């Protein structure tokens, strides 16, 4: 793939093979279930095929697109929950039998209660291990905004997990 030229289908196929699994793993941290995560990443690649574009840093673009698409999924889910209710979280919580699973459910539950931006920052920092600057580029916000979001997120998580 040549920098500065539009992606061709072979490039998209290559990016898909290289990054699909990793991006699904990122998306699952943001939308909570694997089915939705796969749909998110598939939609991102479908959009890339439909509208080829110049990408100087394909992985950065893909991360940003996955985060943005995950937001849409969460927003749609909110609307659906308002209309039909949601029982999936209750099922997951009730199934937490082992200690490790219990910790996972407790921590992920706390993460899911964070405001959207704080959750994204936490996932990109502690799952993707991006720097503050890199997170700012992915989310389109300043490093200062990333730091303050991270600080607030950790304080909230501490409160939720200790409470």
């Amino acid at each position, binding site marked *: 793939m040549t920098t500065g030229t539009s992606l061709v289908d072979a490039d998209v196929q290559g990016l898909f093979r290289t990054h699909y699994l990793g991006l699904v*793993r990122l998306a699952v941290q943001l939308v909570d279930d*694997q089915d939705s995560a796969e749909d998110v990443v598939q939609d991102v690649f479908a959009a890339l095929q439909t509208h080829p574009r110049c990408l100087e840093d394909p992985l950065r673009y893909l991360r940003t697109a996955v985060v943005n698409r995950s937001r849409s999924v969460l927003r749609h889910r*909110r609307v*659906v929950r308002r209309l039909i209710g949601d029982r999936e979280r209750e099922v997951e919580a009730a199934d937490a039998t082992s200690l*490790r699973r219990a910790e996972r459910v407790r921590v992920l539950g706390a993460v899911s209660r964070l*405001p959207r931006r704080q959750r994204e920052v936490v996932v990109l920092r502690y*799952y993707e291990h991006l720097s503050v600057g890199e997170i700012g580029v992915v989310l389109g916000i300043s490093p200062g905004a990333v730091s303050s979001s991270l600080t607030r997120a950790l304080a909230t998580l501490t409160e939720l997990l200790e409470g």
Partner: protein
Amino acid sequence: MVEDLENVLDRVFQDRAAQVTAGSLRRPDLGGAGRRPLTRTSLAALSAAAVAVIAIGIGVAISMGSHARIPPSTHVRVAAGVPSSPVDFSGRWLLSSVEHGGTRLNVPGGLGASIEFTAPDKLVMSDGVNTLFGRFTPTATGFTASEMGATLVGYVGSDTTRLTVIDAMGSLAFGPMTNGTSAPRVAVRATVDVGRLVLAVADYRLTFDKARGAAHATGPSATSHPG
């Protein structure tokens, strides 16, 4: 303590990621194959979308005010008992800027973000991608939005302005996103000054300009400031 939390987060995220393996992928290939069959949840989502589309149709019919005859089957609530607001924000307004976190973002008119208040209590918004609709109740400082719904079109893109507008308009309709749920009623502060409407909710401040030539439906206010 923070270090412990950071380690816990790292472990929990990696643990969850490890459950997603190449063998567990439902859609391992690029393309439409493997799209999940319609589940009850999906059907419910489609039903919700259908309800949303119908509701938009009703909302549009109402927003056309005197220009359209409201179908006989449409029930329109009487505004009796609705408190008045000192701010007249009736009519249609076009989003011109969004302030968030100390940053002001100008919104081009072509993006199509707008908000419209029509009598007696209908609220219809567009964030340029989806339509959001529901009811509003005037308050002493603005209004509360309630019974909100939205169309379910996903935005797959990275345009910062559009994403900010989507988030800001979503906050007006559903409040700031917390715990994956939305507030049943969202309190919005509103001020109007010479054809300019400013709405504040959470840490967003949205400025709208009065739409030119817009049908001016009977507003919610008992006063008649220029709007």
